């Protein structure tokens, strides 16, 4: 136990996702339940690679209309102006409000894309049975788990603008269709990080320790 590295899977044990209790079983066949908390027990998250790929691809598809369609539509004294994510960022940068421009750039563009590219890299590395730097790859996974939620910032900004600026003809802000697609990107990437199983990174390492 102290020197040799033994995983739960090696020992014929299943670790509960919710409460960490170990149970005996291979996890291959019938639906097993954790005796303590009732969660379904699996050796690894079921169909982790296929599900994560599907969600990542769906997120990429939604990311296109999210950037092309307007997030907000502002009506002010009869003039209508649509803003996409990028045009909002550019507006702030040009008007000297660069900290806010930077926040939106990070939350709406850098975070979702970084997260998607990291997940794709992890998926490919697991599929190619890479043994390269597993500690660092696990850390990359932790980053994707932690940063995804911050992409919701722009959705909340739109919600607050819509609620505050409703003065009829004087000034009204409506949420655009782009916001729906952007919300979908955020939700899909969060689920994608949840369906990926970082233990798959380490499953390729086991043979080297014998």
């Amino acid at each position, binding site marked *: 136990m102290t020197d040799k590295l033994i995983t739960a899977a090696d020992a014929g044990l299943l670790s509960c996702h919710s409460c960490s209790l170990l149970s005996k079983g291979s996890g291959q066949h019938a639906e097993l339940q954790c005796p303590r908390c009732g969660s379904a027990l699996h050796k690894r998250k079921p169909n982790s690679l296929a599900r994560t790929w599907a969600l990542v691809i769906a997120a990429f598809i939604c990311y296109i209309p999210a950037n092309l369609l307007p997030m907000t539509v502002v009506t002010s004294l009869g003039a209508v102006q649509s803003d996409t994510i990028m045009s909002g960022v550019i507006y702030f940068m040009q008007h000297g409000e660069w900290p806010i421009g930077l926040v939106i750039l990070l939350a709406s563009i850098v975070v979702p894309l970084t997260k998607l590219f990291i997940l794709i890299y992890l998926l490919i590395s697991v599929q190619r049975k890479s043994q390269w730097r597993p500690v660092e790859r696990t850390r990359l996974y932790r980053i994707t788990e932690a940063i995804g939620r911050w992409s919701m910032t722009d959705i909340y*900004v*739109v919600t607050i603008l*819509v609620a*505050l600026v409703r003065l009829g003809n004087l000034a009204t802000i409506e949420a655009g269709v782009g916001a729906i697609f952007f919300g979908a990107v955020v939700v899909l990437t969060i689920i994608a990080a949840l369906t990926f199983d970082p233990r798959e990174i380490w499953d390729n390492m086991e043979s080297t320790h014998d």
Partner: protein
Amino acid sequence: MNINNLVACHECDLLHRIPRHEGPRCVSRCRRCNAALHRGVENSIDRTLALTLAGVVLFVVANSFPFLAFKLQGQETQTTLISGVIDLYHQGKWEIAILVLLTTIAIPLIQLLIQLYVFLPLKFNRVPWNMATVFRLAQNLSPWSMMEVFLIGIIVAIVKLVGMAQIIPGLALWSFALLIVTLAATAANMDSQVVWNRVEYQR
């Protein structure tokens, strides 16, 4: 090898002996991938309960009063969290309305109520009915509670509107800020293993 003394790392599946905790606050980490195996907190039940009670009060205040008002040429509008969701719904953007409702109101509230349901009886050495199922639900919901992100959204919206009109912060804004600090403190002080250890079960 007794499996009751072992725990597997959630990120790389390596088996470890269940760490013994000494001291008020300590984290044990996986020796292979450095993931946190367990965070021990002294008096975890008391601390979680106290912070949850504070959280419930702040949640009620934060949702009962407007958090921002917007004044332009004599006209004034105010917004609460719920009114923002309702406006989105009326504009036909029900998808976003539901997303905002769930992540900033419903899920944080469900989590607070579940914590109250679990930790109040535990404080008096009782185990509430169906504790394992209910507590598991609260754990699974945590990635979807996004109040702290909402606060960043408020700040960005204020800066965006400040050049256009007069923005007046409301009472609820300060409650939001305190609520977010309270929720973060609750997460840092909750030791879920203390709850799981109280569940009786048969193998």
